């Protein structure tokens, strides 16, 4: 599986993602934001970090990078695209996903481990998760407050495009356990075609026992399986 990891000026989880893709047996490759073509790749990942210092709005300036035109084209042709944290923000700003990520309602950077529900386990990113599994993984962001207008939210919910939600200690989403004020406690969403996913939590930081959780592994493995299966066809 050849995975392009896009590095923008200010990306800082690019290397973490690289290691993680290697760990699950993928073949990662860095692409620079000024590149204009992706080459032959099986998936594209946009890492976390602070592209352009998060200035103006998180992800806004990066969304205008030359490489993003190629990413859009790749996504239009059904290629899998995953945006994590800042990558999710870039995908929203680039209109590859609906909505926007506003500042956390606390107005503070939020760094901690959260619990997530898997809301849809029949996508290329999640099909190895059992439906009732709850995942532990870190968040680390200042702008993770997912916002979309009512209509968009309804459509996301109806189509099962909400991928992950923040859970409270009782296994239910609550306002107290929502770390950033996101609408409907949303932690990640997917596009209508099911090939572009964005999420605020960091699955790539939850892939080794020594890091405290391995709950992110199945996400990358799901994608890997899907790609090798589609190659066999």
């Amino acid at each position, binding site marked *: 599986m050849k995975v392009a990891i896009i590095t923008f*000026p*200010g990306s*800082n*989880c690019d*290397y*973490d993602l690289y*290691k*993680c893709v290697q760990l699950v047996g993928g073949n990662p490759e860095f692409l620079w934001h000024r590149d204009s073509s992706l080459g032959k790749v099986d998936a594209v990942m946009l890492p*976390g*970090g*602070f592209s*352009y*210092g*998060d*200035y103006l709005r998180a992800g806004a300036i990066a969304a205008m990078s030359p490489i993003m035109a190629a990413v859009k084209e790749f996504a239009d042709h059904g290629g899998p695209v995953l945006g994590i944290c800042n990558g999710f923000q870039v995908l929203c700003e680039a209109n590859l996903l609906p909505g926007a990520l506003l500042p956390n309602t606390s107005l*503070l*950077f*939020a*760094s*901690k481990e959260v619990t997530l529900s898997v809301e849809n386990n029949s996508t290329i990113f999640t099909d190895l998760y059992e439906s009732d599994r709850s995942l532990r993984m*870190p968040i*680390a962001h*200042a702008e993770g407050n997912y916002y979309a207008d009512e209509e968009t939210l309804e459509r996301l919910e109806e189509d099962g495009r909400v991928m992950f939600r923040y859970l409270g200690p009782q296994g239910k989403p609550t306002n107290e356990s929502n770390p950033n004020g996101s609408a409907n406690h949303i932690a990640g969403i997917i596009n209508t075609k099911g090939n572009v996913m964005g999420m605020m939590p*960091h699955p*790539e*930081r939850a*892939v*080794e026992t*020594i*890091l405290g959780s391995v709950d992110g592994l199945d996400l990358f493995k799901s994608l890997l399986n899907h790609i090798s299966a589609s190659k066999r066809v």
Partner: protein
Amino acid sequence: MSSPQSRPGDPQITPELVSEHGLSPSEYQKIQGILEREPSYTELGVFSAMWSEHCGYKNSKRMLKLLPTKAPWVIQGPGENAGVIDIGDDLALVFKIESHNHPSAVEPYQGAATGVGGILRDIFTMGARPIAVLDSLRFGDLNSGRVRYLFSGVVQGVGDYGNCVGIPNIGGEVYFDKGYEGNPIVNAMCLGLMKKDSLIKGEAEGVGNLLVAVGTATGRDGIHGATFASEELNEDSQSSRPQVQVGDPFTEKLLLEASLELIHSGYITGIQDMGAAGITSSAAEMGGRSGNGVEINIDWVPVREPNMTPYEILLSESQERMLVVVKTGHLKEVQAILNKWELEADEIGCVTNDGLFRVTEENKTVAAIPCLALTEGCPTYEREGKESPEIKSLRSKDLSHLKIKSSGYENIFLDLLGSANIGSKRWLYNQYDTTVRTNTVIAPGEADAGVIRLRESNKAIAATTDCNGRYVYLNPRMGAKAAVAEAARNLVCVGALPMAVTNNLNFGNPLKSEIYYQFREAVLGMSEACKLFETPVTGGNVSFYNETSSTPIYPTPVIGMVGIIDDIKHLTRPFFQESGDEILLLGNNTDELGGSEYLYVSEDLVAGEPPIVDLLAERQLQHSVLSMISKGLLQSAHDLSEGGLACALAESAFGNETNPFGVDVVLQDRLEPIPLFFGEAQGRIIVSCKKHSGNQVLQTAKNHGVPCRLIGEVVPASSGFRIAGRTVSVELDIETMSDRFFNAIPDLMNQKNDP
């Protein structure tokens, strides 16, 4: 020596002007002697910055010479941008601590942010990739609105900068005490990792090589910051302060990547951050270290504002700038690397062979001073030191008459757990990215020290910062020993062998004899302890003049210590693991309450003799715990510090909120309950082990000559917390305790009143 011409518009040099530059008449005479003429205005500015306390260490250098700096594993001791030690496997660990107290008192957010920026540059200019940050903070009482403003601004500044660059925060400390009311302390420590052979130094090698300025253009910000940091704050500080420096972590991240790429490219011979005193200090220091000279063409320096004079350009402290020495003929390649990272690189001068720090403007010399005169030549002083009689009498205060308040031991205990100094620091470190780079195995709040695993080997690096300023205030020599001992103990509790120290000496005005006394005593205590623990000092920083309206802070010599965990499987945490596990106490409980958090919280008192540190006993204690850990005997280890035995047990019981336990502990000591539960006697560690393996722990302690006894067992959280002495037993339920502990700081921060 070629004389510089004076520039139109330069003010006349008068005794007043000299004194405004922080130079004494005799220092000015010395300058005249060095130059064999009057200095120009520009040169006066240059001397003023280089001979400031901040750059020249004039009141501290002689004492600092007393610190141990050598060991077989030390690759680079004091004198460079950062210290370096050999950690095996061809790897070197680079680390340093730096203060930004004065800027943070004026503008907490930017002050703290630029403090982190500066220390990161110190690390990556050595050729190392930063792998972790720690922060050591001190504030006044959180009941004051102003203090809450400073605290939240500083925490956000530390967080935003490190988060954006992508360096995990793995620990630190924060204390709140009226002693820091007007003068917060903001110290940031950074660790970096590199291959041993990538080490590069801040030296201007190779006559004819180019001096290249990299990064942000120079503005008028922070002019005379170094001199400013060498003065007391007063009401005027708001208006007379230099233009505040604004940090740009985004540019820093690009500088970091570009610098590491440059260093590996082989096109450069030296690199240094333009920190305090900007271009001046970086160029003069690089020239001084190599024995060569440097020439700077002021017209070539990229500036952000019109009409800047050489004086301003030379002394600006604009952030995110570096000075690089480029091998002749390789400017193009260097520029290509920088441009890839969207950075500019401009030639601003070259390395010369005349030993001079020379500055020209339109081909006219505006400054020509021997580099060494600026660096090594800075006059140094040993001041008179005398203990303050007031502090002496505080220390000798008789504490034996203290009666407990009618509210009872349970309430005292809860008040301590809910004090800002003992309560959880989660409010703060939840604003720091602690897991980026996916190497953090112990994050803040998870143990006594932070731990980063090395992907390249089985080893892990542990780091901590420590200093209880109250102890140092009451007894500087003992307090400094306690800081070193606690740092080492913290490392040992996670399973690491202490290796080396960086230190940040935060004090008041050294020209006052009672302050110089504190300084000298603290250095002596630190020196003695570092020698005994075999943890040489590889660098550090001195911050004097931490005073507002003449009230100095508590003397606060912060110890940053690094250690190595030989095999990551020995990693140990402070939290209890299983009901039924046995709890053992190593070390002795004694009747010591001086300087304790109990006195501060319950009696509003900072007095008494601080706890005595027995360095030899401490070392045996630490060796014994390391040996227990390497035998795999321990389920947990936690050092005792503020709040004493009761608070340490509480932290081990429910500090890990997702897996809380209760405890049942019985103590036979012949001590009054208060010192027994809450006294802060040094040299103690609580450990837990599997049921029935207590004997092995006892045996190991005995072999090391360390007092050790079984004091109780871990019980389910639902069974509650019980600690019993001979006469008094304290029982509480875990939820009540944990509630006070975790909400201590949030509750204080949620108060509303005028800032």
